[in-house]
């Protein structure tokens, strides 16, 4: 009998490029290392592939199960992708007690003890892990990226309660929104720094338009639930910046300066979400 304790879902791109020593492309090697690092006894891994990339899907290790993703991301965002709600639903469909999502460029150096500790935390609420940045695959220790989350775990029962409709892997803001949504639902959120959650550093692929579009999605979801925001005690800065986002949903058409103002307010609002989540922070060595 196969006992699945944790089911992880991800989306693996057909190609991954990362700067390596001597100008070499370290991407393929890093992607393979990531793929190989996810499965473990009791941990089942699903790799969702968008319909548009079905022919280019990378070879997967035997323990990583290929799954055809629901369509629609390409039509919405102009490039193939996987809906987070789809990924979490597939993970929950395994019957695992704990489900999660992991970004494709995260290598999990997790021994059984670390995996048990993470799963244990995630039985009681949503767990969001910072990534440790490394410049090369063999680097022993690096700094944590404090303003983002690349591995998220939660009890399977709460996955369908999250409102992830518009968010897909690679779309900005999903990690902030999933934390805020969970907190507004009264779900306990924990932040974990674990050296076993590793990311090979690369230049940020930040696209302003996509970032602002995702921010609008967040604001649209907060607007009908703003009463749920107040009891979280996020603080006056979060309240002020949140109100600004709600008051100016389309700043491009409001004239001089507002677009930049909303961009700054959005950045700070996102940081305030991180700050609130870090009130319950853990270190897992």
């Amino acid at each position, binding site marked *: 009998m196969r006992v699945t304790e944790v089911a992880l879902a991800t989306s693996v791109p057909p190609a991954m490029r990362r700067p390596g020593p001597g100008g070499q492309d370290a991407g393929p090697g890093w992607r393979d290392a990531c793929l190989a690092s996810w499965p473990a006894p009791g941990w089942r891994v699903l790799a969702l592939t968008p319909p548009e990339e079905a022919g280019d899907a990378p070879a997967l290790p035997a323990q990583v199960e290929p799954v055809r993703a629901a369509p629609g991301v390409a039509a919405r965002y102009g490039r193939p992708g996987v809906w987070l709600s789809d990924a979490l639903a597939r993970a929950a469909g395994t019957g695992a007690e704990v489900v999660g999502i992991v970004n494709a460029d995260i290598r999990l150096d997790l*021994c*059984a*003890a*670390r995996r*048990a*500790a993470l799963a244990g*935390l995630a039985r009681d609420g949503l767990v969001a892990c910072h990534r440790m*940045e*490394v*410049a090369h695959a063999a*680097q022993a*220790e*690096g*700094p944590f*990226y*404090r*303003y983002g989350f690349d591995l998220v775990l939660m009890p399977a029962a709460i996955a369908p309660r999250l409102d992830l409709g518009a968010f897909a892997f690679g779309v900005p803001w999903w990690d902030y929104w999933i934390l805020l949504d969970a907190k507004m639902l009264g779900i306990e959120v924990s*932040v*974990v*720094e674990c050296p076993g959650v590793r990311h090979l550093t690369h230049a*940020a692929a930040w696209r302003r338009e996509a970032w602002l579009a995702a921010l609008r999605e967040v604001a649209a979801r907060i607007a009908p639930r703003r009463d749920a925001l107040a009891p979280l005690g996020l603080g006056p*800065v979060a309240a002020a910046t949140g109100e600004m986002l709600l008051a100016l949903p389309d700043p491009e058409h409001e004239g001089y300066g507002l677009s930049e103002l909303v961009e700054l307010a959005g950045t700070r609002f996102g*940081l305030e979400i991180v*700050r609130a989540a*870090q009130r*319950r*922070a*853990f*270190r*897992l*060595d």
Partner: protein
Amino acid sequence: MDIATPRRRIVHDMLFGIDGSGWHPPELRDGIGFRRSGPGRLSILRVALPAGAGRGEAQLLLLADEAIPAPALFLNGHALDTASRRVGPGAVLDFTWGEDAMPEPGLAEFWFLADRMEHVPASGGGMRSMGFRLCALGLETAEAGPTTAPDAVARIAGERFLREILPVAPGRLRLAFRETEGARVVEAVTEGARLGPTPVPGLAIGLRADGNALHVRLGAPGGALLAATLRGAGPLVLPGALAPRDALLMARFLAALPSAYGAWLDTAMRGAAPDAALLGAWRRDVARLARAAECALAVALADGPSVFGADPAAPFAWPVVG
């Protein structure tokens, strides 16, 4: 199977608002938030912490080829052992503290004494003195968790009682340090001090540390000196010339001295190159005095004449000379 235990950690990110002084405005560069220390060598950060021993790490950002900074670190006046290591593009300063540095829950006052400063052009002209770049503090303590609800109720009720019935304000201090034969002395003048509803303009405070004895004198213009001495772990004996309620006000005043000392540091150390060891010794002394004063207050409230019905508007009766 080995068991890995996640450890609760208090994360204090320098990108956000801080309680402290000696820091330049926050910056966000390549996804890393930080503040540079300066303009003085002493930078102060106050963080709420449970009581007891603990360990922490200060995450520092380095520029390419920059040597690892080695700031001296103090917690509530206690010098801490530190060890630094390079981590990717930054560095981590590891440190631990003992129970004596954090004997009770509250605001932990961390001091960073920069080992080097640099002077860089300021945006509006002139130069700015800047030290190391602190990204975040991660703190872990042995304390199990928050106090229970009954403890919280008692604490809230007690603090409200103290605030309303025994209000004091230590005011703003101006300090002068002196060394005499075999003793350290600090003399302070306060602005805006109050004992109960009574303003005490020009209140002078003298502290003399002599061996393990700490002598305290409070003086007001036209009034008699109020003296108290703390030997070792106490107890602190308050002046018998005071009415019971006024003795409690004096205890409250002495208990407020650590925060007043911290406020003085916030302003006085701007741009200064301080003697951190001396400042630390006095920080420990005022904390010891404050704890003894709180003990005296607790004993008096528990076993002394009741002050629960005292008139908070009654003036502080300062004994007159002679």
